[in-house]
């Protein structure tokens, strides 16, 4: 299959003729078209146009985000593999690495929630096991419209089933995530899935295509017409027509995925491969060209050898199909046969469809006739990028200027208690048990702390060590102040991980935004990325990869700008991990970190007053870093019986969560909120429900508080004893800012546990 000089690229009979309209339909601008003509030195064939369209889509080419992403730090002592590979890899000690990445599947899930979510999980699992890592955990970060809307309930139910069924079947536990509900996500829900895998570092493999003549093999499911142009689809706004466009819908097959997983790990373990990559977005096109680009080589494929599911498929379709559960691999030539044997043993299809070349070309033939010949390097790396002008939207400016004083105090104690009830009943705060009990959380027997705690904790193969991970984001805060929102996502994720006792090490991120062509969205994107970069630097948690999902809007209404952070950390001694909830009656309750008068953007304003307004709580990065050090060292020293991060709903909700989450059933407490460290002039609402950053609720054995105080002094973190854990059956007595309430812990637990199940009681997966 080497090229002879007589060959030339031939258009296919019946290909549509090139026209400005056709180019536009492919999502390419006139300037991009000019660029293509220039680098090709001729007009591309229709098939080639399809290739450019996919590779230069936002999804693959990061047209609008690449310049911004340069603001993120990507290097650090733990980073073994930074951005640019299927997944990032960090060193977790003892010769072990952890591969992890997050991916969005927003648009497919808006059209078909079950399959959209399932195939999203499938894709991210493949990204991880193609690094040679065995997937050990899945996280799902979900943002939906209000559960009062039937459409949102339908989408949410389908997505939870889809995430669950896929991971459950493959045998990877789903151990954490987020679930946020706000009308801003009504028609365009966000479904981000993070996968984490573990590998012996010496077995790390990359998506490379090296060695002239080496066989390129397509493995796994047959290629069908599903999902053609999914990458382009993901790079457009959702409109009613898109919802009606069926071909994008792909069906997941977790059974085949499980076989692929086992077979791939066996191939890698036996050292039979040069490189391997998932055929994800833009299918064969992106996997083939990216593998060649990483190695500076070329690839020569003949689609006639590609196993297909349907008859009469064109090269265009075969190159752009996003059929699931497929991989591209480059075998070591002397092992081609062994590779086939392994795949056969796992009942998987494998076909050699081409060879690695050294001419730097992505060449695709149809039965020998060349249909595509594009230089790999510019195709992959020279996608045009855009730096745009951003500006804050008038709506944001207006919301920030709202006077919050009318909402800052309470007339009666009853009002405070009602607000606490409303918050615990808010699906964004309430127990996620309804979600995570549909997920297998304990398969693989590594789960030390599953969902329900601030971070999931999994044991690592390296003796005595554990991994902690969490996902976090806050669209509302980011909408009100993008830079603060970007910082907040990183700071909160780090805090969650540190609460478990782990040292945060690295992050992956998913940027879910509207159309970057809107100045207000570009402003949000640029600000959020800047904030994330600052926080990652301050917390020494470099970014190892991620995903950008733009054009999340319907009917000209962008979703809240929502950066989601997946944070990983390591606990040196798993016996020293710290649970989130209260442990025992009579334990001392402490609060670390300063409460300020910050109710802007809070869940309290949204749930109790229907208001998204004000300035979100500031993120002081010095404080955030000091708190993380305080938590990690305190945990290693055994100073804490429990640690829980305050976030949505503020201190009062954090305390209630500690009370209702106790392992043996709800425990009461007696707490004086006024005793917590605080800045000047904190309003009543700020004390109870404000969401100031860098605060945690801690407990310790009676009399052991001095150690908390000592760690606080050492790290300059203000700490104070605020109360005592009560017994089962005792109320949660909370006082503060002149108010006192004493709801029964069991009653708070009831509200908290029933919020989502009651709203979802009619959904029952009829079509599955």
């Amino acid at each position, binding site marked *: 299959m080497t090229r002879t000089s007589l060959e030339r690229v031939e258009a296919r009979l019946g290909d549509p003729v090139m026209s400005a309209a056709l180019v536009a339909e492919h999502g390419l601008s006139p300037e991009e078209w000019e660029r293509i003509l220039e680098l090709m030195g001729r007009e591309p064939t229709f098939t080639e146009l399809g290739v450019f369209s996919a590779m230069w889509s936002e999804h693959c080419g990061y047209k609008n985000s690449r310049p911004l992403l340069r603001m993120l730090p990507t290097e650090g002592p733990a980073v073994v593999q930074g951005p640019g590979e299927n997944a990032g890899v960090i060193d977790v000690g003892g010769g072990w690495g952890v591969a992890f990445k997050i991916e969005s599947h927003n648009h497919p899930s808006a059209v078909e929630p079950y399959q959209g979510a399932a195939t999203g999980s499938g894709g991210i699992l493949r990204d991880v096991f193609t690094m040679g890592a065995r997937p050990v955990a899945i996280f799902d970060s979900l943002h939906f419209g209000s559960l009062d809307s039937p459409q949102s309930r339908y989408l949410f139910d389908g997505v939870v*089933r889809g995430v669950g069924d896929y991971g459950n079947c493959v*045998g990877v536990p789903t151990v954490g995530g987020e679930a946020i509900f706000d009308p801003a996500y009504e028609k365009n829900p966000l479904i981000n899935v993070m996968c984490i895998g573990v590998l012996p570092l010496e077995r790390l493999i990359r998506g490379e295509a090296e060695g002239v003549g080496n066989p390129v093999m397509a493995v796994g499911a047959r290629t069908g017409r599903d999902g053609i142009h999914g990458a382009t689809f993901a790079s457009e706004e959702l409109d009613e027509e898109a919802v009606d466009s069926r071909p994008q819908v792909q069906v997941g097959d977790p*059974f085949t995925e499980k076989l692929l997983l086992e077979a791939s790990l066996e191939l890698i373990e036996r050292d039979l491969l040069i490189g391997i990559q998932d055929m994800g977005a833009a299918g064969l096109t992106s996997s083939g060209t990216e593998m060649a680009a990483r190695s500076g080589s070329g690839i020569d494929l003949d689609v006639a050898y590609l196993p297909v599911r349907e008859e009469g498929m064109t090269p265009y379709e075969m190159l752009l199909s996003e059929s699931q559960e497929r991989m591209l691999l480059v075998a070591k030539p002397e092992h081609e046969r062994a590779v086939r044997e392994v795949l056969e*043993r796992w009942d998987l299809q494998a076909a050699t469809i081409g060879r690695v070349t050294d001419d730097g070309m992505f060449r695709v033939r149809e039965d020998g006739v060349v249909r595509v010949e594009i230089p790999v390097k510019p195709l992959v790396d020279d996608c045009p990028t855009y730096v745009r002008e951003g500006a804050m939207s008038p709506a944001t400016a207006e919301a920030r200027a709202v006077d919050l004083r009318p909402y800052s105090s309470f007339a009666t104690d009853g009002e405070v208690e009602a607000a606490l009830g409303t918050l615990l009943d808010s699906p964004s705060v309430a127990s996620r048990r309804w979600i995570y*009990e*549909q*997920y297998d959380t*304990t*398969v693989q027997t590594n789960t030390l702390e599953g969902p329900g705690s601030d971070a999931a904790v999994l044991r690592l193969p390296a003796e005595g060590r554990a991994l902690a991970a969490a996902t976090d984001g806050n669209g509302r805060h980011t909408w009100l102040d993008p830079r603060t929102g970007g910082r907040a996502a990183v700071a909160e994720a780090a805090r969650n991980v540190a609460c478990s006792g782990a040292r945060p090490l690295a992050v992956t991120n998913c940027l879910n935004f509207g159309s970057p062509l809107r100045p207000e969205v570009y402003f949000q994107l640029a600000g959020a990325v800047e904030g994330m970069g600052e926080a990652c630097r301050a917390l020494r948690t470099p970014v190892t990869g991620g995903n950008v999902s733009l054009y999340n809007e319907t009917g000209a209404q962008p979703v809240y700008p929502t950066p989601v952070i997946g944070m990983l950390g390591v606990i040196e001694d798993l016996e020293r991990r710290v649970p989130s909830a209260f442990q025992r009656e009579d334990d001392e309750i402490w609060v670390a970190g300063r409460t300020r008068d910050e109710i802007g953007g809070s869940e309290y304003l949204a749930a109790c007053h229907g208001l998204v307004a004000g300035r979100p709580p500031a993120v002081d990065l010095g404080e955030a870093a000091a708190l993380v050090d305080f938590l990690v060292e305190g945990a290693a020293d055994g100073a804490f019986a429990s640690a829980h991060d305050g976030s949505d709903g503020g201190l009062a909700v954090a305390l209630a969560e500690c009370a209702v989450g106790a392992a043996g059933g709800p425990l009461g407490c007696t707490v004086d909120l006024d005793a917590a460290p605080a800045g000047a002039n904190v309003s009543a609402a700020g004390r109870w429900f404000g969401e100031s950053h860098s605060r945690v609720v801690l407990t310790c054995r009676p009399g052991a508080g001095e150690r908390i105080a000592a760690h606080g002094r050492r790290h300059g973190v203000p700490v104070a004893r605020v109360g005592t854990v009560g017994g089962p059956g005792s109320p949660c007595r909370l006082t503060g800012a002149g108010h006192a309430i004493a709801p029964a812990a069991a009653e708070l637990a009831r509200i908290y546990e029933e919020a989502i199940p009651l709203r979802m009681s009619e959904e029952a997966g009829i079509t599955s």
Partner: protein
Amino acid sequence: MTAGMKVGIVRFPGSNCDADVYRAVTEGLGESATYLWHKSTDLEGVDVVVLPGGFSYGDYLRAGAIARFSPIMGEVIDFARAGGLTLGICNGFQVLCEAHLLPGALVRNRHLRFRCHDVGLRVENAATPFTTAYSEGDLLHIPIAHGEGQFVAEAATLDELEAEDRVIFRYVDRRGEATDAANPNGSARNIAGIMNHEGNILGLMPHPERHSLAVLGNTDGLAVFQSLLASVLRARGCRSDPPRAEAPEFAVGAVAGASS
């Protein structure tokens, strides 16, 4: 022959709790285990065969239906019919029913959802090769993880199971009562695990192997494997001194799944 026990764990395509059983046997119990490939027809002289959990063949058609025809199953059926100790967990239980080695069937959970959480289990019969290390009436705390775990059978079959003490585990609440609320999937008579008439084949939906390692904080399931070891040793004529497990502590309130 070694002094201990060798457990054969069948790997069907789609099995995903095979490694967990392996760890329970090797790390939890300190015995040896080996994987048996579904295309093989050699049981390699194992003392016990375990059909592990997972989604064999994706659970397409019906859970366990296709796996039941794997080449290895011919050997497993002969082994079991000849009295060999055979344990089916979750998907393995479904396979055993499909293979008619155990009566009844496992259908979709009553509420139509997959469920994973710890359940309360009561040991109904401690005089079986799978349960001698427990005492009758022990309350255990073991995870379930299934979408099709509702045990159904004809009334006559259920009566026979009860009459012959072949219901080995039942779903119970924290007080040890087999209430409807404690039944996570709608199983007939709260049945979580049953045995064949001859007493050498056990199928159960909960996962004892997931609670067999001390590092995970709960070892309520380990006694299933300890019991098997004792049975193997006894059958071999070794001194039978079954390692008696500590009576598992039943955490009040933890049954409904409020784990950690």
